[in-house]
């Protein structure tokens, strides 16, 4: 099996699938599906990096979609906008190649036919063919540098919005042509693709810029090839004389100096006389209009053409080829460097592996520490019905079924467990409590985090339980709690220093493994019923500024605090409903946390989406 690799098309497909998943509200369905993929395909492969895992996931999703094209939530799953995008790029490449070539030829032809029977004026020829190109390259690299150094937004990069437009149009055309029946969904998919390309800049950087860059270089290469070809054929098939003429008072000496300077790149193989005209030939080929051309020696007149061709090769063609190749390399590198750690990715990853926090699965995983260690956490055993880690028993049993179905023999169980060994080696946090979940497979591990807790609820909530929840349910190890809500600026400063020291400690003591998943994150606890006001959003934005660009910020939402209901219950139903009362007291006072209202969740989602931060995640403290 050849090793699959990420391509632009795959990335678009991947993002497209993630987007589709976002529209599915049935969490259990997604969880079951992804866990199955994980158990059946990813675990046996032994791959651990997110990039590899997601690739397998994508293949699997696409395969099932192709086998039984079902409509999920009114979207067609067996449709690949990525393929369409690649097709479209291929088409554009051909079109631009041809267009460049034609343009090159027609520029030359125009020039040749204009000059007619006179000897061709070399300086004019170069001015027309080469000079604009050189200028263009200069301007573009200027733009490029400016955009790289942040002086200018990348999207202003002149020719590329235009190219983007061309891509959009051709995508539309392609999609219309290929399938008219489900055109509206296709159009949606095209829109989604464009959105992925547009919005992906934050996550994918220049990734989607490179194909455009490459296409431009193809055009340049073809253009210069066209010029070269038509020039050479002119020389071959017509008796062509070249000369020079200047309205400036330029001596032949001067011209020679310039010419030999231009010829520096090839002077060492093709010296004066062959690679470029020598001083005598230059004198001999000077066109002085009033004298006519009859006094000029044919030999001298012909001596120019190698120089011309080589100039085009070295100043037109070669730079373009170099840029083209470097474009290819950059694209490759950019693909390789993708970390796949933005919000939807981490959500997917969690969906795939979170089953593992289920106590029962301990039996299945021989190398995992037994679940008895959970008794570290008294709250968990007190209130098992609240422990979110067993929230999804159905999915788990299905998975178990799937797993046994696939690997009925006992021994294979050990094979399957191998990655776990590996994982516990990678994710080894030294403190005892984290070993609790040491069997969580890579690349997910318990990551350290700083928790920001509003002072309003800090006193009221059960901190231990919160930390336990974060660790078992969300795999965040709360190493530091900062109470916020009194003076944002000071608190931000504090978070900044705390974060800086934490990250530094990490960088020096623990070896970085490049996954991006073991970075520190910041968990911000919020009450969902409090509408997110601008102040909250601004706080998150400033928080982002004091952290790294890709540090995950988790907004952990909890529902309405029920403690007062408990008091109510006490007075009203003292005798009648003691079990209820117990329930209330326990949950009201010990946990503080309650499930989030769906409408509140939607409100937060809408408001937070205005920040457009791919590393900003929303979680429910309790499901």
């Amino acid at each position: 099996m050849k090793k699959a690799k990420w391509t632009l098309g795959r990335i678009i497909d991947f993002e497209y699938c993630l987007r589709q998943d976002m529209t599915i509200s049935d969490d259990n369905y997604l969880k079951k599906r992804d866990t199955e993929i994980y158990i059946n395909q990813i675990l046996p492969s032994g791959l651990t990096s997110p990039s590899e895992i997601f690739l397998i996931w994508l293949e699997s999703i696409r395969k099932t979609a192709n086998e039984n094209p079902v409509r999920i939530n009114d979207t067609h799953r067996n449709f690949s906008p990525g393929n369409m995008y690649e097709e479209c790029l291929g088409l554009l490449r051909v079109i631009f190649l041809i267009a460049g070539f034609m343009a090159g030829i027609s520029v030359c032809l125009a020039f040749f036919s204009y000059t007619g029977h006179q000897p061709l004026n070399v300086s004019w020829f170069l001015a027309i063919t080469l000079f604009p190109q050189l200028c263009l390259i200069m301007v573009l690299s200027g733009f490029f540098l400016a955009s790289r150094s942040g002086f200018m937004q990348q999207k202003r990069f002149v020719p590329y919005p235009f190219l983007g437009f061309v891509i959009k149009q051709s995508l539309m055309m392609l999609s219309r042509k290929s399938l008219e029946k489900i055109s509206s969904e296709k159009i949606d998919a095209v829109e989604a693709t464009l959105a992925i390309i547009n919005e992906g800049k934050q996550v994918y950087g220049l990734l989607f810029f490179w194909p455009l860059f490459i296409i431009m270089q193809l055009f340049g290469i073809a253009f210069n090839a066209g010029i070269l070809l038509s020039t050479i054929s002119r020389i071959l098939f017509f008796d062509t004389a070249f000369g020079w003429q200047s309205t400036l008072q330029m001596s032949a000496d001067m011209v020679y100096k310039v010419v030999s300077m231009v010829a520096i790149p090839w002077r060492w193989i093709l010296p004066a006389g062959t690679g470029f005209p020598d001083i005598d030939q230059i004198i001999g080929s000077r066109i002085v209009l009033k004298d006519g051309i009859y006094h000029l020696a044919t030999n001298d007149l012909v001596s120019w053409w190698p120089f011309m061709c080589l100039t085009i090769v070295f100043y037109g063609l070669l730079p373009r080829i170099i840029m083209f190749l470097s474009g290819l390399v950059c694209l490759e590198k950019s693909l390789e460097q993708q970390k796949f750690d933005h919000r939807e990715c981490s959500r997917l990853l969690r969906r795939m592996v979170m089953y593992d926090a289920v106590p029962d699965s301990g039996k299945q995983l021989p190398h995992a520490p037994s679940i008895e260690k959970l008794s570290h956490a008294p709250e968990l055993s007190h209130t098992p019905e609240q422990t979110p880690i067993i929230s999804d028993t159905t999915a788990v049993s299905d998975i178990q079924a799937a797993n046994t179905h696939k690997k009925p023999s006992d021994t294979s169980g050990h094979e399957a467990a191998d990655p776990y060994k590996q994982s516990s080696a990678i994710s080894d946090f030294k403190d005892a409590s984290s070993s609790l979940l040491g069997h969580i497979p890579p690349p997910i591990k318990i990551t350290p985090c700083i928790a920001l807790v509003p002072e309003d609820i800090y006193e009221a909530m059960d901190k231990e339980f919160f930390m336990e929840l974060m660790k078992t349910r969300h795999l965040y190890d709360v190493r530091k709690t900062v109470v916020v809500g009194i003076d944002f600026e000071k608190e931000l400063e504090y978070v900044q220093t705390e974060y800086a020291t934490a990250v530094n400690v990490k960088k020096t003591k623990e070896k970085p493994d490049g996954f991006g998943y073991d970075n520190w994150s910041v968990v911000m606890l919020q009450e969902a019923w409090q509408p997110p006001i601008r102040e909250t959003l601004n706080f998150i934005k400033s928080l982002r500024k004091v952290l790294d660009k890709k540090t995950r910020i988790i907004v952990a939402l909890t529902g309405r605090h029920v403690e007062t209901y408990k008091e109510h219950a006490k007075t009203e139903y003292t005798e009648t409903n003691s079990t209820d009362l117990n329930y209330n007291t326990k949950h009201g006072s010990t946990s503080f946390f309650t499930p989030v209202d769906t409408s509140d969740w939607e409100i937060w989602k809408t408001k937070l989406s205005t920040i457009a931060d791919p590393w900003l995640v929303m979680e429910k403290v309790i499901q």
Partner: protein
Amino acid sequence: MDKHVIMEKIPEFAIIGHPNEGKSSVVSTLAEDDTVKISPMPGETVVCQILPVLIDGQEIIRFTDTPGFQNPRETLAWMKNYSGPDELLLKTFIDTHCNNPDFKDECELLTPVARGAGIIFVVDGSRPVRQTDRIEMEILRMTGRPRMSIVNCKGNEPVHLNQWQNEFRKHFNSIRQFNAHKATWSERIDLLESLKGVDQDWQPAIAMVIEKFKEDWKHRNRLAAAMTTEMLEHILTFTMTENIGESETFNDAKIRLQKQFIKKIEAMERLTHEKIRKLFKHNIFDCTLPSNSLLHEDLFSEKTWQFLGLSPGEVAIAAGMVGGATGVVIDVIAAGITFGVFSAIGGILGAGSALLSGRRIADITFKGVKLGKDQVKMGPVCNLQLMYILLDRMMIFHGSIINWAHSRREIDESVADDITANLKKGFSSGWNDKTKKVCSRFFQSVCTKSRFKYKKQQIREEMEQVLFSVLEKQV
């Protein structure tokens, strides 16, 4: 003198609070304006909206809906650092921040306060107090404007009322509970009463406003009573005549006419209800109630007849009071049949009374062309029972209209339940003898051809008066 106070300075109150606490709802209810935008999405209101209360085309008080606080912490921090003269605090704040998008909402919501509006601070009593709320209260305190607070309970119970009240005591001149979605007219008046206590200067003006409010309410009820009386007159005396078609039997024509007749009566009733709805300034709320509600059912359906109106015995008594003209009713009671007999107007029509008459105009043929036509006439349905049904329905309609807060936009189950309960009760059966007597006299006067126009008019006025006092009592 008092009039001048109002003319010169109309009291203005800005309704201020955290987003999504129900500010727009409170304003909508207070100003009886159901065009105010209300939405579960916080940040719905982005600009101030002034809602003047007009009585007789004259503005007597204005409520201003404002956006919610979006940036309270920084706002308070700025105000605490402010060192200029107190009276310029708000103006300076607004001038400094008007172009800063972060303070857009604060500038907007403080603008009415800066121009002298009183403050009504709205909070949701079903949620706990948070730091942000304290900050907002502090901001309002620093404005130095007269202010009161309203606990508008969005949840079912004001669970955190005590906590809120403790907080409020530090900052507000007056505290009131006011449920925007459930507030009745009298609760609105109560709220206005407590506005008096917010600022001495406004006391006379607000007293005046309350006076006007009460007058206006009376006026509306008087109009509603008149409309109802008119409707009764129209319906009870309504007749319809139709030609019998060429190829139609008398019976077919009868059935056709019956349908049209019923439709017409229904339309007349609906028109009156519509007028009453407009009278109480409802544009959105309509008694197009869920189908399980009886009010929505056909006026002449079996159920309606069963549930509305008087009990058989009461009909007899009412009939006795009228004396005579009770043929149908007595018939029924004598037969010992329940209301089922009246299950449809067809029942009455079929009873063979004078309601229906076929008249054969002499068949004159002129040169082979028929000139005459058979006609069928229906009505008037001079039926005491029907009158009481219409009255009951009107009472139910009126009752739900006046109790429907203008901020309440969606009709839920509870409304339908209320109405069904009311229907079972039957309003008119609870009326006192005097009222019933007037009704019967009115019925008689409408249904008999009397030559004394003057007397008719007098009875009609009596009826209006009686209905008015009945409506006034409705809560």
